[in-house]
């Protein structure tokens, strides 16, 4: 088992003819991901990477019945692409696009409420169940099938955790990039819930940063669920200069209250193991699993 995606997942690529989308779709296909089609307005009826291309998501859904769609659409059109996928009731939407206007995401979230879709991202590295299915921009190596579930806001910190858990022969069940934008789809709590219910996942890694309240919501869930599976967390941004924009749109927080320190306290008091350096994630997880 795994969460969100596995070898049966049929994947659509919106914006499939773009440079990055092409590279990442090629890599997905080479690794065994079932890519069933692509969408590119104006190129309906053609083929790209040997899969059919459609003008609209609705056409693609009718013809290929995808379980998930990857959004590789420029920021100007990304919200419309997500809306189209929501309307066509694609169960899982994974958006890697960066720099989407925040009010566009407010509108997308409105459309998501009560819909049949789940959203990962935007500004996400994607979702990968190693050896089975990948939707996103992550590297294949050093991912390896295994028992650790990872959810992270940032990509590189997640890759570091993947690297460590692979070296320690723990491997990963699924890794989910919840994305660095202030308004986004699935949060840590949503991922945690799925990982707790997933038999393959024996330990869970959460990698957060200052701003927003995703970490706090995850802490609340931990407090009420008291899970047996260990949760190791790392939170970046304890020393971030206040009021400055630091790369992620997600790191600006007008409410200012959700400091990295507050998140660390919240997770610790909820029973998570919070490490002080990203290099300690793997070891902390191995130790926690031994104790179990």
């Amino acid at each position, binding site marked *: 088992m795994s969460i969100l995606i596995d070898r049966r997942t049929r994947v659509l690529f919106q914006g499939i003819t773009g440079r990055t989308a092409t590279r990442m779709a090629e890599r997905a296909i080479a690794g065994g991901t079932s890519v069933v089609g692509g969408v590119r307005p104006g190129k309906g009826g053609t083929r790209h990477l040997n899969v059919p291309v459609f003008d609209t998501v609705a056409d693609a859904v009718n013809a290929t019945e995808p379980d998930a769609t990857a959004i590789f659409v420029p920021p100007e059109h990304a919200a419309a692409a997500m809306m189209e996928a929501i309307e066509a009731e694609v169960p899982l939407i994974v958006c890697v696009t960066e720099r989407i*206007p925040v009010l566009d995401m407010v509108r997308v979230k409105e459309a998501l409420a009560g819909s049949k879709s789940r959203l990962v991202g935007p500004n996400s590295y994607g979702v990968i169940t190693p050896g089975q299915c990948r939707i996103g921009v992550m590297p294949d190596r050093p991912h390896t099938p295994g028992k650790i579930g990872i959810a992270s806001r940032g990509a590189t910190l997640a890759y570091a955790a993947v690297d460590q858990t692979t070296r320690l022969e723990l491997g990963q069940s699924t890794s989910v990039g919840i994305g660095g934008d202030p*308004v986004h789809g699935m949060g840590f709590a949503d991922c945690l819930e799925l990982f707790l219910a997933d038999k393959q996942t024996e330990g869970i890694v959460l990698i957060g940063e200052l701003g927003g309240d995703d970490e706090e919501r995850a802490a609340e869930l931990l407090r009420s669920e008291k899970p047996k599976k260990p949760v190791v967390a790392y939170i970046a941004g304890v020393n971030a200069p206040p009021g400055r924009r630091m790369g992620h749109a997600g790191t600006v927080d007008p409410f200012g209250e959700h400091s990295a320190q507050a998140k660390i306290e919240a997770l610790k008091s909820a029973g998570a193991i919070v490490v002080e350096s990203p290099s300690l994630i793997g070891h902390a997880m191995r130790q926690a699993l031994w104790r179990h």
Partner: protein
Amino acid sequence: MNLHEYQAKELLGRYGIPVPRGAVASSAGEAREGARELGGGTLVVKAQVHAGDRKAAGGIRIVSGEAEVADVAAKLIGRRIVTSQTPPEGIAVKKVYVEQALDVEREIYAAVLVNRAEAKVSVVVNRQGGSGVESALTQRENLIEVAADADGVDAAETKRLGEALSISAEQAAALARILSEARRAFFELDASLIEFNPIAVTRDGGVTVLDVKMSIDDNAMFRHPELEELRDEDEIDPLEREAHRFEINYARMDGNIGIVTSGAGFGLAAIDMIKAAGGEPANFMDVRPMASRDQVAEGIRLLARDKRVRVILAMPVGGGLLHCDTIAEGISSVFRKDGKILPVVYHAAGTGKEISEMTLRNQGVPAAFADSMEEAVREAVRIAGSRTR
């Protein structure tokens, strides 16, 4: 993109939001002229810089008469204002805004902002506004959320607002109009923040916006080419501005350890690791996924231009798009083309780790290779502490 107060007032004035009469000036002469047009009397001279806490830093002065306006303007223009929200050396004042002073009875704080936790736009007010309430947003217990939709604030909510703030029905109605229009402007202009601090209830019973802080979502600028001319490039750190051109998110800090990392989260983590090891980071860096070798090289040259930097700590984590070798090639390229480079401490992980280390070794870059992030950080802190430049 942050707007100056005078720009925000101009924009919001078009929405019928009441602001005092004012005039923007780039010189003492212009300020005097503006004061004359405003009819003299008691006026406020305000330095136009993108930073809060201006009053405490002497950037807002209440004066009377044209002569004093010119005098204060002459002192402010060209001066650097240093507040908690500016870079350490402050921001130079290029323009002042001269405004009619009002007889203020009561100050209220209000803001329209993206409530990220609930993924919606929120309108909030605080009973108290004015200087010293710069952090009103952080005191959530004092914030009152105002229900508003595309039609604005309705009658029932206006009544509730009046009661919560202890203001008259007319004043509540005026405030509700301001908030409704501000919300409309927020959506139409793709704002990321509109903060009124304060809105004044004047002695004659009026309700007027005294100060506004407004930002436009940079990611939405493609929809607002007309707002591009409001951008004040001088307000952005020149290094940060340049870095942006090279696909690099960069923010300057006060220390002497230059950081080269990719990913915003990892960039923040590197800062925390350095601090924990007793060092001082010179910057935040997030080399974006599509950056090229040459862009990375330019980023490293930018780092070296900050004369405080004594060592470069490069900790790439290779992903699916950006590989470690791109970072290493950037470093090597600086060394090869410039004939010199600051001492480099290097630790790589992920895609391209081995090849990146080989690149640095083959090019003879003076790099210390660390086996772990901790070791790399410790070594960088040691070099920064021992080396003078």
